């Protein structure tokens, strides 16, 4: 039932994506006589909850729907032995609802509510397997950092409401005065979302939480963190747009992106817990996205630089989001498969598993080559876009990004050798391949990787570039709200 409903959601999202690609931005006003009646009669500002879906929103919705479907299918076998299945799937759907709400809403307070929904569901799912000693700690850390981050978001919303009597993103962007209070709100929003993104130095909760959550939930937490990345983009590009502070904000994002990339990967190489290793890589890959988007922000006020390399950097950063959701999701699922059969996450205790788990090995290789940026996989395509465009902005940044990629390969080679290579170990003589539903969950993501690897131009042209255009074109988002109905 859960899988069928998520498959239907995926179908609806694809239809909506096609419609947005052909006809542009969509508005839906909740409770209005007409969906596009954003400003009721006798009002001059929007007052209802409004869903505003453009190419960036639907891009994130595609990621959420695809990964959620793979996670639900994988969970069928992975969570089979657990008690409270109905509660597990209810929370899973709640997490999906939170992610969708965050990426589809056009209202800041609504964004806060859905952020809370996703956080509560995520924490509960992380701590779901109470039979393991460390799950409660992981869940607690997730809910504490999420609540503190959400509190800062609420403070920022309060600042906007006190000044402008508005909480709609488009309407706020329309009247934004860039006062000192607006700057404080910008800092609160940006750093709160970066906390949820696990950007260095706010990353330490990430390995603690991701490593103990069930593998299918870990990949959903990754996507939930990308919903916060989306919220960061919306804040910077749509809410504040072309303001003088954006160059500074761009450089802050770039600096944190570089730190995130480098610290994440160097800490990953050091790990011997396979899920902690992958969690650190998750942090590291977020650095690439921040770098690409940060360059776009830094040159937002310079049309020539924006057109020469800024848009390409943003295309690369956005393309990397969907690529990372696919291969990082796949890698976490393979780690879950190893844990499912061996009962350990410790790479020191693994070895020779390729003899017994052939499908898992193949999926791991696909994911590892892709995340390491090895041609012809999709990770290479998005990294190439980032390298070349960022090189034109500042060559040193591109060089650090390449070194990070080399360390990524080194790290996954270590994990591959430790877990899969070598002779069969006596303690794993009885190990066999994981059940079919887990293979199916991994296969969905692997198929996505292969498709994106073969047709990167198509994905950039139809998904990533329209998303970049939607972010840059602040006016279209504002007129979607202020120019509608009434």
């Amino acid at each position: 039932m859960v899988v069928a409903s998520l498959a239907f959601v995926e179908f609806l999202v694809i239809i909506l994506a096609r419609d947005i690609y052909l006809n542009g931005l969509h508005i839906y006003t909740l409770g209005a006589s007409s969906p596009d009646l954003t400003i009721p009669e006798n009002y001059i500002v929007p007052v209802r909850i409004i869903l505003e879906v453009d190419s960036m929103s639907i891009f994130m919705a595609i990621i959420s729907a695809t990964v959620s479907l793979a996670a639900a299918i994988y969970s069928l076998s992975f969570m089979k032995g657990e008690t409270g299945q109905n509660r597990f799937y209810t929370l899973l759907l709640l997490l999906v609802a939170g992610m969708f709400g965050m990426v589809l809403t056009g209202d800041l307070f609504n964004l806060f509510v859905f952020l809370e929904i996703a956080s509560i569901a995520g924490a509960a799912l992380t701590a779901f397997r109470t039979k393991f000693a460390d799950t409660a700690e992981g869940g607690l850390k997730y809910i504490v950092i999420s609540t503190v981050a959400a509190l800062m978001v609420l403070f920022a919303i309060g600042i906007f409401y006190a000044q402008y009597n508005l909480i709609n993103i488009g309407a706020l962007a329309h009247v934004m005065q860039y006062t000192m209070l607006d700057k404080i709100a910008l800092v609160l929003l940006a750093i709160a979302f970066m906390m949820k993104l696990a950007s260095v130095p706010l990353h330490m909760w990430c390995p603690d939480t991701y490593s103990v959550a069930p593998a299918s939930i870990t990949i959903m937490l990754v996507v939930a963190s990308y919903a916060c990345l989306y919220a960061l983009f919306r804040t910077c590009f749509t809410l504040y747009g072309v303001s003088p502070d954006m160059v500074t904000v761009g450089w802050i994002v770039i600096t944190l992106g570089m730190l995130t990339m480098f610290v994440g990967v160097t800490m990953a190489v050091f790990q011997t817990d396979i899920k902690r290793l992958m969690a650190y890589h998750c942090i590291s890959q977020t650095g690439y996205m921040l770098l690409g988007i940060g360059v776009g922000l830094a040159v937002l006020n310079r049309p020539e630089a924006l057109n020469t390399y800024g848009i390409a950097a943003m295309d690369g950063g956005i393309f990397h989001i969907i690529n990372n959701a696919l291969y990082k999701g796949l890698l976490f699922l393979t780690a879950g498969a190893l844990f499912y059969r061996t009962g350990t996450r410790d790479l020191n205790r693994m070895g020779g598993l390729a003899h017994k788990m052939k499908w898992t090995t193949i999926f791991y290789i696909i994911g590892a080559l892709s995340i390491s940026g090895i041609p012809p996989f999709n990770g290479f395509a998005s990294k190439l876009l980032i390298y070349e465009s960022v090189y034109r902005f500042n060559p040193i940044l591109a060089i650090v990004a390449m070194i990070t990629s080399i360390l990524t390969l080194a790290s996954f080679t270590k994990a591959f050798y430790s877990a899969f290579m070598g002779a069969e170990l006596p303690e794993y003589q009885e190990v066999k391949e994981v059940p079919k539903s887990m293979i199916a969950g991994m296969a969905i993501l692997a198929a996505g990787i292969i498709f994106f690897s073969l047709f990167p131009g198509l994905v950039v042209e139809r998904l990533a570039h329209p998303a970049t255009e939607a972010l840059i074109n602040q006016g279209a988002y504002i007129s979607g709200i202020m120019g509608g109905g009434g």
Partner: protein
Amino acid sequence: MSISGLSYSPWSPIFWLLASVVVMIMAYFFRRRGQKKYKKDTEQTKIFLCGEEVPEAKQRHIRAHNVYWGFFETMKEYYDANIKAHTGIINDYIIWFLVLIAISAIILFIVGIV
């Protein structure tokens, strides 16, 4: 061919795969010209360790913590600092959060004045 219609980022996975197929065919051709006396599942395929007895599988598998040992030794100070910073205590995580908010606000404030 370009990923996003730019003059740079020339990349086509299809051409890359075609080139790979050509290289694989060449590799297969050279391999066929190689040693003919190879026989599967004989003494030829067993591990040779200078005539010594080969240890059991469990003993000869190099464990994860030994991989890249030299790299970690060289970077010991860097890793010590990072591991020390990662206390596992959530209060410390929140302190990092507040410090970053303060630093970012100060930077934006200074830039605003200048």
